[in-house]
């Protein structure tokens, strides 16, 4: 995940406010995959994630001229994506039982130093993916925003519409739930898996 330079971001916001299509291309190139990963892990359905992703970009287009000059594009886009998912979930009463389907979307092969390491890491990551998928939505979104997308807690809290303290509690609770699920089988690895989660 690459972080956008703040000066570059402000320049892009300024150009977006003038409806500059090239600026939109740059923002799209930077955030499209990240938003998709967030949405697909939140909804656990590729078709839903694709629809919500498109709608997120259309919202940026329709709201581009009303962006504040100091807008932080990442949190703004994740807020829109998250709110669209919440609306979708309310309207469709989305089933929480598609974790297996998400694993089928994985690319073949994950990075590793040896074939054995690759196989072990792959298996651990698959279990981690399934465990994240089984978390209640409010914990899942907090964990994805902070642990996977690398948003700062204060940014993730704004995305979720809660206080930073409440967000930290949710991430902490998500970690505890993941540890319970993964720790029963291999506690040490589960702790290592969660080493990257900080709030």
């Amino acid at each position, binding site marked *: 995940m690459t972080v956008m330079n703040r000066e570059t971001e402000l320049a892009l916001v300024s150009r977006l406010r003038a*409806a500059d299509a090239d600026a939109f291309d740059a923002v799209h190139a930077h955030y499209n995959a990240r938003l998709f990963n967030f949405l697909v*892990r939140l909804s656990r359905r590729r078709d839903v994630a*694709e629809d919500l992703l498109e709608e997120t970009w259309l919202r940026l*287009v329709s709201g*581009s001229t009303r962006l504040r000059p100091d807008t932080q594009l990442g949190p703004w886009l994740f807020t829109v994506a998250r709110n669209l998912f919440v609306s979708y979930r309310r309207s469709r009463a989305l089933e929480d039982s598609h974790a297996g389907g998400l694993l089928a979307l994985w690319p073949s092969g994950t990075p590793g130093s040896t074939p054995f390491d690759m196989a072990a890491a792959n298996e651990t*990551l698959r279990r981690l993916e399934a465990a994240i998928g089984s978390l209640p939505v409010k914990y899942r979104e907090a964990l994805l925003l902070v642990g*996977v997308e690398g948003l700062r807690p204060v940014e993730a809290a704004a995305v979720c519409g809660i206080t930073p303290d409440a967000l930290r509690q949710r991430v902490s609770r998500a970690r505890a739930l993941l540890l319970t699920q993964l720790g029963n089988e291999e506690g040490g690895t589960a702790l290592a898996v969660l080493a990257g989660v900080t709030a």
Partner: protein
Amino acid sequence: MNISLESLPQLTPDARRSSRTLALCRARLEQRRRRPARVAGVVALGGIATAYLLAIVLNALRLYSSS
């Protein structure tokens, strides 16, 4: 081997749909960019029409008052 949440594989959106969305967004942005110019054109035309009508009315009043 160190595994973290960031080690989860990147899932990629459908490339064809992404480029279609991008094209749609670009087209809408282009419309939005042209809108201010269109509004300015309409305002200018309205201004000219108003001035023209005002001139006719003033001229008619001048003729009426002088007769």
